[in-house]
């Protein structure tokens, strides 16, 4: 039974990996990776790593892959035509040769290993091996430093992603500052105190009705120089 499950899961994992590498559309690559990760979770279960398998299933194949799907939907489809031509033949041959050489080397390393236990099924383990209790105990006692460092790493990555993907120049854009519903409910010609202080007039409704002369954009604020405005135009 174990053998059958192992071969099904292993063939699924390898087929998923091959799909990730060979499919042209990045969306299908992501789906192949999801299949690969689910097969891998089955392999982890066969190795008695219940908690890691559950984490793989929920966190990896669920949350992380959803992030991928969002970014591929945002970026990928328009660029698909650009990648029709693969990399040059020389690099392709070289890369495949490198991968084959690596595989042969790893096979030699595994088969020539001096570890006797590598050819066995592993020792019989107590019930609950690899469960949350045992992992949590190890993580919060012997591996406490690694646990804390990993949490800092996650914090740094979250902050870094926000900094990388934000819009340059903050939220000084006209449309973005006007988030209040009152701006659209006010009758034409009625402004706010902020507009009076800045010397500009107009809700969006008013700007459509008013003379074209005073409908221009407000002067950029001091912190938001001309360079930033030009960059924002380019970003659009």
């Amino acid at each position, binding site marked *: 039974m174990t*053998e059958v499950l*192992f071969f099904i899961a*292993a063939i699924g*994992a*390898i087929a998923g*990996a*091959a799909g*990730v*590498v060979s499919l042209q559309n990045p969306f299908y*690559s992501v789906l192949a*990776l999801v299949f*690969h*990760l689910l097969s891998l979770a089955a392999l*982890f279960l*066969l*190795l008695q*790593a219940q*908690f*890691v398998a559950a*984490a*793989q299933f929920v966190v*990896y194949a669920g949350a*992380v892959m959803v992030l*991928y799907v969002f*970014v*591929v939907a945002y*970026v*990928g489809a328009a*660029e698909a035509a*650009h*990648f029709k031509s693969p*990399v040059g033949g020389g*690099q*392709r041959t*070289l890369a*495949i040769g*490198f*991968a*084959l050489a*690596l*595989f042969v080397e*790893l*096979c030699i390393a*595994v088969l020539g290993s001096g570890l006797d*236990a590598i050819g*066995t*099924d*592993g*020792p019989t*383990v107590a019930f609950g*091996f690899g469960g949350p209790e*045992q992992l949590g105990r190890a993580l919060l006692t012997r*591996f406490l430093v690694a646990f804390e460092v*990993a949490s800092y790493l996650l914090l740094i*990555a979250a902050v*870094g992603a926000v*900094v*990388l*993907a934000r819009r340059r120049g903050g939220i000084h854009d006209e449309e973005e500052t006007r988030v209040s519903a009152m701006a659209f409910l006010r009758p034409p010609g009625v402004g706010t105190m902020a507009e009076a202080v800045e010397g500009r007039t107009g809700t969006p409704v008013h700007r459509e009705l008013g003379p074209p002369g005073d409908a221009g954009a407000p002067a950029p604020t001091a912190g938001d120089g001309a360079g930033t405005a030009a960059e924002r135009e380019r*970003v659009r």
Partner: protein
Amino acid sequence: MSINWYLMVSALVFCVGAAGVLTRRNPLVVLLCLELMLNAANIALIAFSRMWGNVDGQIFAIIVMVVAACEVCIGLGLVVAIYRRRLPIDVDELRELQG
């Protein structure tokens, strides 16, 4: 199944991932291939954990998953930033680090 078989699957997946990193040009797919390589390492770690009858390898695998999540987070942030600046999304054409 003996531990050997799991290590063979791990080696094969790692090599497929390495070939993908070297041959694909779309940075999204390159990130996916990096995931493949990290997961191959995870299979090996968990197989060794089973071999010793000890959960240390599984802790290691969980930390690897954390690192992979961070890598995805930053990598996808970079891809979105590249897309916003209307630069080509192609690792062959993105040669300069200077903004």
